């Protein structure tokens, strides 16, 4: 196994996921096989290859910068629509369970 059950639980916690013991076993197995596959790829030497993080790094877009927007205000959707999907809006705000940590 390339990854332990503890590591899977840790990552799940970071991602705000609750997993059943069975799911932990399943994902540990699946993630391990993905990582093993990566091992295979690791056998190729990539010392002289620039890391590629995005497809557009290729072809005519290669080394072009991310497109810019000019600093000109555009339309907003406004408070009412912004809060349209909020389950519990209050006084023009999103209202959520108390988040500040207790002392």
């Amino acid at each position, binding site marked *: 196994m390339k990854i332990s059950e503890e590591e899977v639980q*840790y990552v799940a*916690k*970071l991602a*705000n996921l609750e997993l059943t013991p069975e799911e932990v076993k399943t994902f540990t197995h699946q993630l391990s096989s993905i990582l093993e596959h990566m091992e295979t790829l690791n056998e190729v030497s990539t010392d002289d290859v620039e890391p590629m*993080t*995005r497809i*557009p*790094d290729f072809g005519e*877009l290669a*080394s*072009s*910068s*991310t*497109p*810019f*927007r*000019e*600093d*000109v*205000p*555009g*339309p*907003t*959707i*406004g*408070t009412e629509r*912004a*809060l349209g999907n909020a389950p519990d809006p*209050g*006084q*023009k*705000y*999103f*209202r*959520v*369970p*108390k*988040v*500040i*940590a207790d*002392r």
Partner: protein
Amino acid sequence: MNYEPVIGLEVHAQLLTRTKCFCACSTEFGASPNSNTCPVCLGLPGALPVLNREVVRLAVRAALALGCHINRISQFARKNYFYPDLPKGYQISQYDKPISEHGAIAIKVNGTAKRVGITRLHIEEDAGKSLHDGFPDSSEKSYIDLNRSGVPLVEIVSEPDLRSTTEAYAYLSKLKAILETTEVCNCDMEKGNLRCDANVSVRPAGSSEFGTRTELKNLNSFRFLQRAMEYEILRQVEILESGGHIVQETRLWNADEGKSYSMRSKEEAHDYRYFPEPDLLPLVVEDAFVEETLKTMPELPDAKKDRLIEQYGIPEGDADWLASSRTFSEFFEETVRICKKPRPALNWLKGELTAALNNTSLGLQESKISPAHIAELVGLIEGGVISGKMGKVVFEEMFATGKFPRKIVEEKNLVQISDVTALEKIAREVAASSPENVAKYRGGRTGNLAWFVGQVMKATKGQANPQLVNEVVKKVLEEN
């Protein structure tokens, strides 16, 4: 044992743009809650960020002013964490390839110059604002305003080069002056345009190893900054002295109580699972862009200070003070250009004017006083038209109403009496009305002179030229 603090600062500065970092929503302060929002800064599914060109220009400008190297290619990254004021579940920031690195700021503390390294300056977006108090159900609920979500910031990280809270203060002051001068940020700490976190550790003096550090958050005024760091240094020394060890943690400063508290948030909180932002291509800053930015760079505080000393012959401390504020130094130079008197102009600026601004909580630009006002006032005093004392009366009126000094002098009939014949006449009258005091003076009680001078000043309602009165009274008392 003697301990030495080791401090590094992380400063977040809001860039002076009209719109947000990745969308066209306004950055205006004080707008109605959640009104400056759109699918991008609300984190709605499918919305895509597009980088604001002005953000890049300002970040490059700040980086160059701080002596940083500009990386031609930099990359945005996602910093993942869960908090209600972060709607996407991640903050777009820069991680392993920031836009700039390796700068420095020169500070001077107690006459000793020091170079404080800057590790990096990178671009990131701000989160929204959480309100935890002030609502009827604040005991159970937090309120979220996303107007600030996506507002552009630069984070400026210093090396752990600071060895006292005084040095940290000097560093932050200088950084603030540079960001203001370059018009990158307006640095209003009360509005949260400039925010500061500190990494603090202590170690036995002379040791070259670092102790365990804690991160102090919420140091949102210069006063808090120093007090919070001093508290933290003391807290750590006390723990070490009693044989304990420091826990690496984030602590929140509570200014009302003058204490810091552990933020006892989950220990995983620092695992942000950074990865390259797939929604944005790498940022390429061409040399031409850098050169263009360099061309429009204004005079920076250190250079300005040296020039002010050289050009106006003012003391170093005053030059430093002026150079730290673009508004004040420009005001000063304009005043001197009109009245040609650097010292008096400086004294009005750092004395009466600063005091009046503090008392009224006004900024220089919001006040009714222009360089022409101060220049005219200096001219009236230096030309002997009014005394320095009258000048203060004129200043008060001028500050309150914005009227020009010459007009105030006319309206209040404040012109200084410098007419010797008129003053002699008054002095004789005073002498005639009090022969016993005259006798005492002539009998050797020369200290009585002050009483006569006072009487003449009183008779002229304080408008006589005091020096002249002195001479005239002496002459009158000693004649015959």
